[in-house]
Structures are given as C-alpha cells and as structure tokens.
C-alpha cells in the first residue's frame, strides 16, 4: 500500500475511534478526557494496535493541542476578572494551592520518584479541570447559585498560578539552577503583569485592531500571533503554553467572544489528539502497578478539594448544601493535569510519573462529574418534588407551576 494512503487510513481510523469514544462520553454524561486517554493507551507502543506512520503528526498535533488549550483558557477569563480574583480570591486560592499541591508532592516523594517528578505530580493534583467544571456548572444549572462565583474565582486563581508554575516546572525539568528558575518565574510574572495591565487598558482596542470582519482573516491572525508568541516564550524558557495563555488574556471584549467561537472546534480536535498522545506514550503495562497509589491519591485529593470548596463557601456565608456543591464541583481534574504530566514525562526522570498521572486523571475526570451530580441530589423528602419539576420542565408552557412551594417560601 502507498505510504500516503496508509497515513490517511491510520489517522482517519484514529480520529473515528475518538469520535466513538466522545459519543460514549456524551451518552453517559461524562468528560471525554478519560475516554481519550484510554484510547491512547490501547493504541501505540505496548498497546493493542501500534501506530507507525501517523506518529509524527500525532506528536506535533499534541503540542498544538496544548497551545490551543491554554489559549482558550486565557480567552475564558477577562483581564479584569483575573485581577479581581487576585485581589479578592487570593486567600481561597492559596488554601487551594496548599491543600492540593502538597498531596501530590508528598505522594511523589513517598513513592521515591525524586524531587523534580514529585513537583510535577503536585501540579497534576493541584489544578482542577476548568473545562470539566465549567461544563458541569452549566449542565447542572448551577450558574446562578450563590457559591458558583467562589468556585470560579478559585479556578481563575489556579490559572494564574499555572502561568507561574509552568515556567518554574520547565526549569526544574531541564535540571536548571535555582537562579535559572528565579529568572524564568520572574520573566513569567513580568509578562503576566504586563499583559494584564495592557489588556485592561487597551484590550478592546487591540482586539478591534487585529480583528476584521472576515472569520478567515481572524482565524489565521489569531493562530499566527499565538504561535509566534508561543515560540518567543519557549525561547525565553517560559514555556510555549504560557505564551499562548498570555495571548488569550490579552484579547478581551467582543474579540475574545468571536475568537472563542472560531477556535473551539480546532481546540477540541487537537486537544483530543493531545490526550491520545499522552495515553499512547504511556506504557499500559505500567498502569496496574500504579493503580493503588493513584486511587489513594485520588481519594486524598478529592477530600482536599471538597475541603477547599467547603471553606471558601462557608467563609462567604453560604449554607451547608452550597458548601458541598462548591467542594464537589472542584474535584474534577483533567486537561491541565495531563498538560503538566506531559511536560514532566517529556523531561524524563521517573518512569512512573506518566502512568501514575494517567491513572489519576482517569479516576478524577470520571469521579468529578459523578460527585457533582451526587451533590445535586436533594434529600429524600424533596426527591419527589424534584421529579415533578423535571416532568413539568419537559412540557413547555407548564414551567410556571413547575415549582410548588408548600410550607411557604425560603424554609
């Protein structure tokens, strides 16, 4: 067979496989991330189906996936929201960092991975999946809940923390000196501060300048600018991902909105490739051996996330059920844990890191949505009413009487 024909067949088969997995995830109302990871474990080296011709494409596609993930993350929050999160959400954000970074590092050291991989593992357990959480909040109708802004502020803080964490980890991975680490973090901090200031002041104007009426021009401009900035930051040892994130927060207003619409399909494609690549470069034979520590770590860091959400919500005077929801919403780990684990695996060091992170994310990306849905269940006495409401919702027009209030308002 032609080499070219083989390439297309293999790539097409791979992407069709992903489509099938995504379909399953949608049907079961779960995040597709664990499905893609499993798909990646099945194919590739040591798996059931080896991939040969498309390996190069998948590798570059995976790198692009990381850049697009971070770009879209930057687009999700405006510069004003980021600054506000720094001012008013810092306490909860720091508690989140302390409670959820530490278990990863401790587990890494206990397992004898060494300092550098342990620091990466801390990153894996620290960052909640903003993609999964945002989707959960929308799907469960929690957007207007009183605890939701607190949950989102924690996510915003995590994103900013990641802009500092990624270059730091990049230096650690290279085995760089403390001075190099300080320089990289300093450069990242300076860049973040610069972009935040400029974006808050000129973001909308800059967006208008870059954006034209044509979607095609916008798409090419955006991708071009992002890749150039990613290359520059990579050269500065600040990591390409941080560069892409900065481009994202630099664009605000209407421009950000249309950029998000334009780039989301592209992100979905390449992010899926990235998850597969991570699964594919992980040896599936190593997974059973790390399953027990991964499960232990998952249990511990599910509890620490619940504690974080509970504390943040109770500090704001939110009631018990809202606190449970805030905690449960934060449990899911996903794309960014894989990004950090991917960086760590690429850096070498401990071989257990990638399989451990893969098993961990498999558990957490599945457990998160399930836990959130469990938190959404009302106490037994109110279940019946909930069912009535669901039934009422199905019939358009009957929504007004959808929620009976026996016993008066606001019990």
């Amino acid at each position, binding site marked *: 067979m032609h080499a070219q024909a083989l390439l297309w067949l293999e790539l097409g088969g791979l992407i069709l496989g992903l489509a099938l997995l995504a379909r399953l995830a949608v049907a079961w109302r779960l995040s597709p991330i664990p499905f893609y990871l499993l798909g990646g474990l099945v194919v590739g080296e040591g798996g059931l189906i080896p991939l040969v011709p498309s390996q190069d494409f998948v590798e570059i596609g995976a790198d692009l996936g990381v850049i697009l993930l971070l770009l879209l993350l930057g687009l*999700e*929050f*405006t510069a004003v*929201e980021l600054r*506000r*999160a720094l*001012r*008013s959400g810092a306490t909860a954000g720091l508690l989140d960092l302390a409670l959820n970074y530490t278990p990863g590092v401790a587990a890494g050291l206990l397992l004898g991975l060494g300092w550098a991989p342990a620091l990466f593992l801390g990153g894996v357990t620290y960052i909640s999946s*903003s993609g999964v959480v*945002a989707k959960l909040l929308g799907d469960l*109708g*929690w*957007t*207007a*809940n*009183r*605890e*939701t*802004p607190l949950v*989102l*502020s924690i*996510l*915003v803080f995590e994103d900013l923390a990641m802009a500092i964490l990624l270059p730091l980890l990049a230096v650690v991975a290279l085995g760089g000196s403390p001075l190099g680490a300080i320089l990289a973090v300093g450069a990242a901090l300076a860049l973040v501060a610069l972009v935040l200031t400029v974006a808050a002041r000129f973001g909308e104007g800059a967006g208008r300048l870059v954006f034209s009426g044509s979607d095609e021009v916008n798409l090419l401009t955006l991708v071009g600018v992002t890749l150039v900035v990613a290359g520059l930051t990579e050269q500065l040892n600040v990591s390409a991902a941080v560069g892409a994130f900065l481009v994202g927060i630099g664009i605000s207003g209407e421009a*950000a*909105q249309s950029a998000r619409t334009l780039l989301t399909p592209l992100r979905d494609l390449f992010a899926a490739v990235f998850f597969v690549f991570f699964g594919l470069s992980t040896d599936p034979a190593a997974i059973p051996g790390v399953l027990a520590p991964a499960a232990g770590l998952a249990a511990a860091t599910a509890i620490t996330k619940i504690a974080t959400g509970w504390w943040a919500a109770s*500090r*704001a*005077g*939110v*009631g018990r*059920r*809202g606190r449970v*929801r805030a905690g449960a919403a934060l449990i899911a780990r996903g794309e960014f844990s894989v990004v950090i684990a991917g960086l760590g695996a690429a850096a070498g060091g401990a071989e257990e890191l990638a399989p451990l992170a893969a098993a961990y994310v498999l558990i957490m990306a599945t457990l998160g949505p399930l836990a959130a849905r469990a938190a959404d269940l*009302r106490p037994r006495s*109110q279940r019946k*009413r909930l069912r009535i*409401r669901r039934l009422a919702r199905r019939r358009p027009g009957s*929504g007004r009487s959808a*929620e009976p*209030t026996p016993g*008066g*308002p*606001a*019990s």
Partner: protein
Amino acid sequence: MAQVEQTPVPGVGVRYDFTTAEGRRVGVVHHHDGRKEVYVGTASDPEAAAPCFCLEDTEVATLAEVLGGSRVTAGLARLQEFVEGLTLDWLKVGAGSPVAGVSIAAAGIRARSGVSVVAVLRDDQTHPAPGPEFRISAGDTLVVVGTPEGITAAAGILRAG
C-alpha cells in the same frame, strides 16, 4: 425599589439579584455573550437557583415592557430632569464588607468614586446627611448620589474595599 445585588461570575458574566417580598431570590445572569438568563431561587435551598429561561436582547425589551418597565423608565427620566446625569441609588453594606466599622471619610467613598453618601438607613432609622466621621456598619444601607459609573465604583468599594 428592592435592592439589587451585583455579583461578578468569572468566565460567565455578571449576576444581578434581589429578594422578593415573598422571600424568593430572583435574578438575571448577564452572560458575556449577551444572553440574559433569568432564574428563581429554589424555595428549599436559599443558595441554589433554578434557571428558568434565556432571553436575547430584543426579548429583554419585550419582557421589560410587559412587566411595566416603561413606567419605571418614565419615573427615572423625571428624576434625571432635575440634574442631568445624576443618579440616586441604595447600596447595602454586606456582612463581610471591608468598610464595615470604618468612617465614611476613611472608607474614601467620595474621594475614590465621586459619589456622595446623602443618608444611611440603619435598623429602620434614617440618618440623613451623615458627616465624614459617621461610622458605617455591616447591614447599613447607604443612599448615594452620583454618576452611574461612580455608583458602580462605590458598590465595588463597599464590596471589596
């Protein structure tokens, strides 16, 4: 008029809500993409809110009209005839507000937002024309006069210092 609380929801937009005389929380989430999502707090759980429906811009105008919004606009217009560009508003001092226990002068509301505090409502009592040394406490409602931008800034000061 009921007091409207404004809460930024990062990544989503801004939430405005108030409590009805019945004790239900009613509000609207203004999404970044322009959608307006109307919701009602559930009776059993004060923190949860069930989204009811979503509105586009034109539908917002229609709903406001149906609810008697045109009369509200007319009333406001009369007020603004008095002094062009001036708005009167009621701002609640939340329990966790950093300005609780601080004097009006020290809170710097006037200096930082250009808005004047013309009265303070506390426990059914009205303190008209409070001096700069008047101490704000949690639960107070400040009656303020200023530009709409200034009032937004003042609300920010009450919330976040």
